[in-house]
């Protein structure tokens, strides 16, 4: 049966604390920490972008999959921060991994769910027998305007998954998508920062679609919340995943292993996929995992995975996601952060 045969994550080592951002804008740090359950977030270095992070995460996925990269027939990168408006991220990634030239490549964009979109398509091609292996990455160097509420959460990170039919680590039991035209968050061409509808991004957007997708896939699979060991929801802030989990009938303990946002921030297309890599790191054979992404605009992709015995063999072939999150951190001041994120630029 088809499923994930290798997975990997990448997190830049730079961090900035909520207090450091709040200090600059005269904002109330404790209320952000309490209200959004955020402490710090990852920040990419000046030489890092969606492509470099995708390469790092994919290399880890390859280590766990133990396959010849030339046999990968599909490479998909989901992001809302592709470095180029025209010219794919996927070609660079495929070339760097050694998957070219016999490969189908595409970039996906659907706000924070572009990563799971790529997963959906790569998995489907494997299932259909069109390709032997398919690689899908969710990665972002998210943009948040200076002083906007988004600045406290917009972070950087990537997660990569290789799908195949043999040596599967997590069998793909069911997939489901739930979508409407709901404009809660957008960025037009030539705009540097996105705009959002404030609280409109909550009830009619995030909650409606995740609940819709979560209920839909469980009904399709004939399963209930108690049947899952773990569940991962998109993590725009610390509070939302727990709230939506409660709405769907999940316990905190099912959510926590994949809940990274309080110290990672929102890695947009990488958010729920990275929650999945962290969850796989701690899962045992036979565990059932539900993941539901969310992308503004708006929609959710849901997957049910069943972990196999191969997890014990591959788990430590590449860095664990929590180790990337907790070790080797470097804290930035706002000035460095502003430079790294190109919020200020040196005169020519």
């Amino acid at each position: 049966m088809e499923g994930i045969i290798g997975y990997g994550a990448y997190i830049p080592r730079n961090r900035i604390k909520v207090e450091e951002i709040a200090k600059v804008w005269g904002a109330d740090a404790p209320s952000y920490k309490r209200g959004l359950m955020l402490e710090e977030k990852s920040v990419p270095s000046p030489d890092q972008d969606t492509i470099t992070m995708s390469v790092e995460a994919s290399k880890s996925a390859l280590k766990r999959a133990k396959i010849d990269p030339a046999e990968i027939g599909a490479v998909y990168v989901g992001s809302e921060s592709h470095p180029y408006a025209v010219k794919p991220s996927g070609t660079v990634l495929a070339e760097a991994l050694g998957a070219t030239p016999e490969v189908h490549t595409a970039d996906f964009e659907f706000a924070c769910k572009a990563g799971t979109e790529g997963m959906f398509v790569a998995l489907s091609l494997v299932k259909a027998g069109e390709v032997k292996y398919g690689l899908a990455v969710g990665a972002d160097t998210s943009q948040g305007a200076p002083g906007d509420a988004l600045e406290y959460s917009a972070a950087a990170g990537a997660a990569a998954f290789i799908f195949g039919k043999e040596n599967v680590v997590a069998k793909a039991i069911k997939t489901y998508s739930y979508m409407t035209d709901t404009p809660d968050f957008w960025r037009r061409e030539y705009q540097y920062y996105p705009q959002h509808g404030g609280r409109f991004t909550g009830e009619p957007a995030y909650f409606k679609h995740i609940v819709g997708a979560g209920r839909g896939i469980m009904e399709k699979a004939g399963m209930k919340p108690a049947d899952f060991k773990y569940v991962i929801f998109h993590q725009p802030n610390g509070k939302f995943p727990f709230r939506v989990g409660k709405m769907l009938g999940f316990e905190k303990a099912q959510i926590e292993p994949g809940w990274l946002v309080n110290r990672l921030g929102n890695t947009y297309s990488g958010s729920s996929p990275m929650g999945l890599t962290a969850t796989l790191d701690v899962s045992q054979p036979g565990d059932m995992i539900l993941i539901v992404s969310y992308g503004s605009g708006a929609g959710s992709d849901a997957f049910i995975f069943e972990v196999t015995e191969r997890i014990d063999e591959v788990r430590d072939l590449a860095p664990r996601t929590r180790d990337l999150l907790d070790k080797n951190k470097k804290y930035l001041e706002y000035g460095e952060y502003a430079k790294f994120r190109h919020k200020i630029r040196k005169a020519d």
Partner: protein
Amino acid sequence: MRDVAVIGTGMTKWGELWEKSLRTIFVETALLALNDAGVDRIDSMYVGSMSSGIFVGQEHIASLLADYLGQAPVPSTRVETACASGGLAFRLGFMEVASGMSDVVLVGGIEKMTDVNGYEATYALGTAADQEYEGYHGITFPGLYALIARAHMEKYGTTRKQMAMVAVKNHKNGAKNPLAQFPFEVTVEDVLNSVMVADPLRILDCSPITDGAAAVIICPVEMAKKMGKPVVKIIGSGHATDRIALSSRKDITWLEATYQAGKRAYETAGKSPDEIDVLEVHDCFTIAEICVMEALGMVEKGQGGKAVEDGLTALEGKIPINASGGLKSKGHPVGATGVAQIIEIVKQLRGEADSRQVKDARVGMTQNMGGSGGSTVVHIFERE
């Protein structure tokens, strides 16, 4: 002048009504009022709306709403005097029926405020200030009321805690109102620890941004009696203006328009402050409720804060204020607020206010205020 009664009320749940447009919200509300009154026609209608042009890009809403309510070609008039638009619409409807020009009049109020973001909403509300002398210099409405609050604290020793207690009381009442936007209780600590908006006012001192409408049907008392309706009679009406800019006022802690409108309403009703059993007043900010009580003669000048602290204004107190939850808890769709206040008083006088019913309420008052007090409309009602 004929005696006039309120015979029907209509209101739906207030809040962030993203799924509904301005016209839908209004029509749903107006139909409830028509059904409650049991009438199948109206002679004319008035609609209070402060700023539909900025909030939803739609002017000419008097005709639009008459059309969508299926009432065109009846005459329909939009009334604007900032946040007192609803109250003034009611006064004009009352005058039309009292004069004999019409028998059955629908008075509604509406504001759809959440189609724009917070900055635009703040701007729209700010247009109720004196733009040249206040707005263009950067002050917002919370800023203006913060100045009033600070002056009241300095002059009368009103405390931060007393202001917080206004919000605590109104939320306690609002928790009993199923139509309120924020039907939950808050504590003094919650208010004092909430996010600072304009020192000394914090977010829980401020009324919210709300989508909502309210509508009532009025007709001559004689007609109401023939229809067998419970008669809540309009016995007093007052409307007054004041200098819009705070800097033009002699004393910014004193709401002259509220005093004048109240005085006129008491005179026409033949009532004094101690004869009012229940009040709905314009608590757009906690300090506003304190100043309004003083201007209406409910307490001595400067004693508003203490009255709140002593529990006089609680549901079971001597002067129950804002049993509905007030603007603070019920919500504040600006054009609708004045009409919703009247609905609460009608319910109280009919004895239909359920768990927030003020005992033995026979005479009730509404006070609806525009801007930082530049206009005020006061009405007094009595159950027959």
